[in-house]
């Protein structure tokens, strides 16, 4: 392991079944995660993913890095910056920022990728829930990006969900 090394993990797309399984396993049955109508009445335009589910993905990634490097995972912290929706893909990166003695520090960045639509020859051939339910907020418009795929031009919104740090101890 060396300073500057980057690890990446991709999870998802997160499904409603993933959310239900997390709610059952964690005991967090807040209706903003499970009940569409309730989530709409509180202004969320539909259910959102538990913050601790996608924070859990980071924990899993750090656990994997620790296991593969014969290390112990000792610290993980992060700020929840953005909401995650069903259908989003989660991209987590961990960059080694320092090695002191047997401790390795990481900077964590986690982004969500919300699919919006696919266009071919100027015609929209597929729309996703994010587009249909207008989930992209005004402040997130700068995160809208496109990429060419076999199906056509894919439009998505990329947004920061967690920024954090972690430390492992080499054994």
């Amino acid at each position, binding site marked *: 392991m060396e300073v500057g090394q980057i690890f990446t993990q991709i999870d998802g797309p997160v499904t409603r079944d993933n959310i239900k399984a997390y709610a059952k*396993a964690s005991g967090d049955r807040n209706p903003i995660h499970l009940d569409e109508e309730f989530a709409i009445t509180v202004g969320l335009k539909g259910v959102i993913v538990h913050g601790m589910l996608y924070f859990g993905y980071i924990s899993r990634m750090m656990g994997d890095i620790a296991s593969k490097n014969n290390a112990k995972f000792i*610290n*993980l912290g992060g700020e929840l910056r953005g909401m995650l929706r069903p259908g989003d893909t989660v991209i987590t990166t961990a960059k080694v920022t320092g090695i002191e003695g047997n401790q390795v520090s990481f900077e964590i960045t986690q982004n969500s990728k919300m699919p919006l639509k696919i266009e071919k020859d100027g015609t929209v051939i597929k729309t996703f829930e994010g587009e249909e339910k207008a989930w992209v907020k005004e402040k997130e418009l700068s995160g809208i990006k496109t990429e060419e795929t076999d199906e056509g031009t894919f439009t998505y919104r990329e947004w920061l969900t967690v920024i954090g740090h972690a430390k492992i101890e080499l054994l």
Partner: protein
Amino acid sequence: MSERPAEYFEQFKGYKFPVSKYRIKGKKLSAFAAAIGDKNPKYYVPDPEDPNEKADYSGIVAHPAYAACYTIPKLLEALPDIKGSDGEPMLRNIGKLLHAAQEYDFSGCDPLTPATKKVYSEAEFTKFWIKSNILWGESKVVTTNEDKTKTFCKTTITVGIRKGGY
């Protein structure tokens, strides 16, 4: 109703939450690991193919992310009951509450296994500040066994209360 200044919330610094108890069950530890996509045998036991057989969870440990289950819910539940010296609730509108940040420190901690049965979390508010019209509150949580001979996690939880909630 106007927002109260940061100084008002200084009275809650050092506030100790009621000690919360949380039952540890192997099956739940395993289900939690699966729910975050981690099927590492250290944390997860698959369901037996024969429905008459019972899974053995005794060899697993809690996933580090499981700390979310025994720390956050009880703390958030307790917030609406906290009142200031003037009898006013600290949190005026629960709909304005944000879970803003989380930090787990496992240094010097013991692994949490199903044999632990129950964990006990002691929490207290350590800091308050206002930034971007949001009241931020930081609390430190220490989770141990009943006689405090083992510590499983030291957690820092930051909550935010948006305008209209404080």
